[in-house]
């Protein structure tokens, strides 16, 4: 048994850390946060040069062909550095959806473009109901002569303003269906919806009789459901990896502060009331990290228990990241509450990440369905393992 990253995976993580320290330091994060789309073409092409934009996709589509743990190790560092921009939306969400649902032609044209760093994309899923449940999708698609027409509205769409094409989840004659809609299509309107996380952007996207050609129907029915579930699992896992990196960063900056800040003539880190908050942050971090690596392994192995493992990781990390943010700001006192201190940037990201792909309550219900309604999932190397 080896529960943890292999040497190669550790190398991937440490080189990502070095790369991001040089290319995306906190000053750059803050600069991008002030821009309209938090997207920087130069930074993106550097990611592409690292192979990150195709990290988990087959080499035949210009991907790197790496696994879930390599992805998680990389995303952990992105989360630690608080990398702004459309990585999860383009690569993990849209990329995985194309990989699982697209025809070879679709992949040659669109997935390869994502892998090479030439295209940005996103998935438009949520609507007014703000539900992550695929049954809540109502945006209407109907067949017209030699084309489809989409009408309705999507909310909370990440990075829609810089997407070259959107993957839109719609309802086609009762079926779930995914359409590829180029950004310049008439009738498509993208409106920013400013939110807490200033390093990521969310949009409202409306479709006024948007016409897309027949070949832009990516998939429908059961195939669409499976592909979407798969893309959401991968994006959820990547988000948890970012969250683990974020908690690590909060712990590091908080401990550094507690060691140097003096009150009553002593470093505040020598007081147990402060020590215990830092200790709790480590407990939250290590639990999140164990759950992350396990979920990545299970997902990579296509294990039937992967879905539960991802939900355990997302539910735990969702509360852990928020709680770590609370503790970090509390330990740093007034300084922690200032704009100049980095803690609030993580605190904001923690909230957005908690919501993305379902919060702890959502995932607990998902676990309850598997635990109570369908019987306990078997765990690898656990009680009653295989």
């Amino acid at each position, binding site marked *: *048994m*080896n*529960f*943890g*990253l*292999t040497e190669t*995976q550790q190398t991937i993580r440490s080189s990502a850390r070095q790369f991001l320290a040089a290319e995306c330091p906190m000053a750059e994060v803050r600069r991008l946060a002030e821009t309209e789309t938090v997207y920087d073409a130069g930074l993106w092409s550097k990611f592409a040069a690292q192979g990150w934009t195709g990290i988990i996709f087959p080499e035949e589509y210009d991907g790197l062909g790496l696994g879930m*743990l390599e992805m998680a190790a990389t995303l952990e560092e992105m989360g630690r550095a608080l990398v702004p921009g459309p990585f999860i939306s383009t690569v993990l969400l849209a990329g995985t959806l194309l990989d699982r649902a697209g025809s070879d032609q679709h992949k040659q044209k669109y997935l390869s473009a994502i892998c090479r760093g030439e295209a940005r994309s996103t998935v438009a899923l949520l609507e007014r109901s703000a539900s992550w449940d695929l049954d809540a999708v109502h945006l209407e698609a109907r067949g017209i002569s030699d084309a489809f027409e989409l009408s309705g509205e999507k909310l909370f769409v990440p990075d829609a303003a810089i997407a070259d094409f959107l993957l839109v989840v719609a309802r086609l004659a009762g079926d779930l269906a995914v359409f590829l809609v180029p950004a310049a299509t008439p009738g498509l309107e993208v409106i920013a919806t400013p939110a807490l996380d200033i390093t990521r952007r969310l949009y409202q996207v409306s479709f006024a009789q948007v016409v897309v050609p027949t070949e832009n129907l990516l998939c429908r029915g059961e195939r669409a459901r499976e592909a979407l579930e798969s893309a959401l699992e991968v994006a959820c896992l990547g988000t948890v990896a970012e969250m683990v990196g974020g908690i690590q960063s909060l*712990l590091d900056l908080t*401990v550094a502060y*507690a*060691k140097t800040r003096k009150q009553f003539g*002593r*470093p505040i*880190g*020598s*007081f*147990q009331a*402060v*020590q*215990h908050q*830092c*200790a*709790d942050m*480590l*407990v939250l971090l*290590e*639990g999140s990290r*164990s*759950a992350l*690596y*396990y979920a*990545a*392994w299970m997902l990579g192995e296509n294990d039937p228990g992967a879905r539960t493992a991802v939900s*355990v990781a997302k*539910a*735990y990390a969702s509360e852990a990241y928020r709680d770590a943010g609370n503790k970090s700001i509390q330990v740093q006192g007034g300084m922690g509450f200032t704009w100049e201190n980095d803690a609030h940037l993580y605190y904001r990201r923690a909230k957005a990440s908690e919501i993305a792909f379902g919060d702890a*309550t959502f*995932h*607990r*219900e998902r*676990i*309850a369905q598997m*635990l*109570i309604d369908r019987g*306990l999932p078997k*765990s*690898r*190397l*656990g*009680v*009653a*393992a295989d």
Partner: protein
Amino acid sequence: MDLSLTPQETQFRDALRAWLAVSVPRDWEQHRLHDSMQERFQFLRAWQKRVFEAGWAGVAWPKEYGGRGAGLMEQVIFTQEMAAAGAPPLANILGLALIGPTIIAFGTEAQKKRYLPNILSADEIWCQGFSEPNAGSDLAALRTDARLAGDHFVVNGQKIWNSYGWAADWCALVTRSDPNSQKHQGLTYLLVDMKSPGVEVRPLRQLTGESEFTELFFRDVRVPAENVLGAVGNGWNVALGTLAHERATLGVSAQAAVRRQIEGLIDLSRDIPRNGRRAADEPLVRQKLAQSYIENEVLRLNQMRALSKIIQTGAPGPEGSILKIGFSESNQRFQAAAQEILGPYAQLTGASELAIDNGAWSYSYLRSRGNTIEAGTSEIQRNIIGQHVLGLPKSY
């Protein structure tokens, strides 16, 4: 990351599974629920003897001392399979989990030959003499006096919170052998025969009503000098080795036991009516059951990760404190959730015919209160993390 078992580990698991299928005593549940503590202990002692005779005790201990000579991974598989099969625990738990490994690490060849086989066979039951009335969290303040007089030590003092003190044949006793020493210096770890003249055992009744613990009194007790474990004056390091094992290994069976309780609670929730439907269909109940599962699963994964680190580096680290906090605090939350989900029946003790599971839930609720105190309080665990893992300045 690789969680697959090697062919060797799979073979070990399958052989163990086959043995457990025909060997787990069917009447364990009856003994568990109805025996007195002493009767139950005798039952578990006989069970451990059978496990030993079949070659399954001390899975990771060297063969020459009665163990199986396998790896730590097999030890983990053993613990998990025992839990999965609903097998009774082994009686000599402190000897197996703490004192045996410490003897393996610090003992002389003669000591290993003398003590280890009898720990495995449960012929000699062990307890620990660490805490004192004035040395609890501040263990290094201990004052039990050991004076060398020729070929033996003369021991005087008092110990407290000794689990299994009432059943023990031997005691792993930490003493102050240099009366002029302070704190961690001048301590000596002694292996003391509980039948020695001058040893008195008094039961200590805890809030559950049971007397799992004892107080031990030592009055001019003679302990042969050859019974020093490690070197004279090095007792602190030997004791720390024991404590690290305690945090790293005891958790696996504790986690598995809670997982079985969670499964039991899920089953019960299907039959309990709540707000006009089954409790299992009530959203708040579902949230609590799922949260219990999440916390137990994260504990299991933290343990696997820590064990993987021990397998690779050979030693448990201070990260064991994360596991101790994880187990104790999640178990308290789970027991509170179970009380709530089971409703008014949950408070009934085994003395009531109406009690669920013969009062097991009211007992485990009370018993879990001790989890954040025994084996190092949560406060001490957080100090250890703050000072020894995060490198924060010492507070005392």
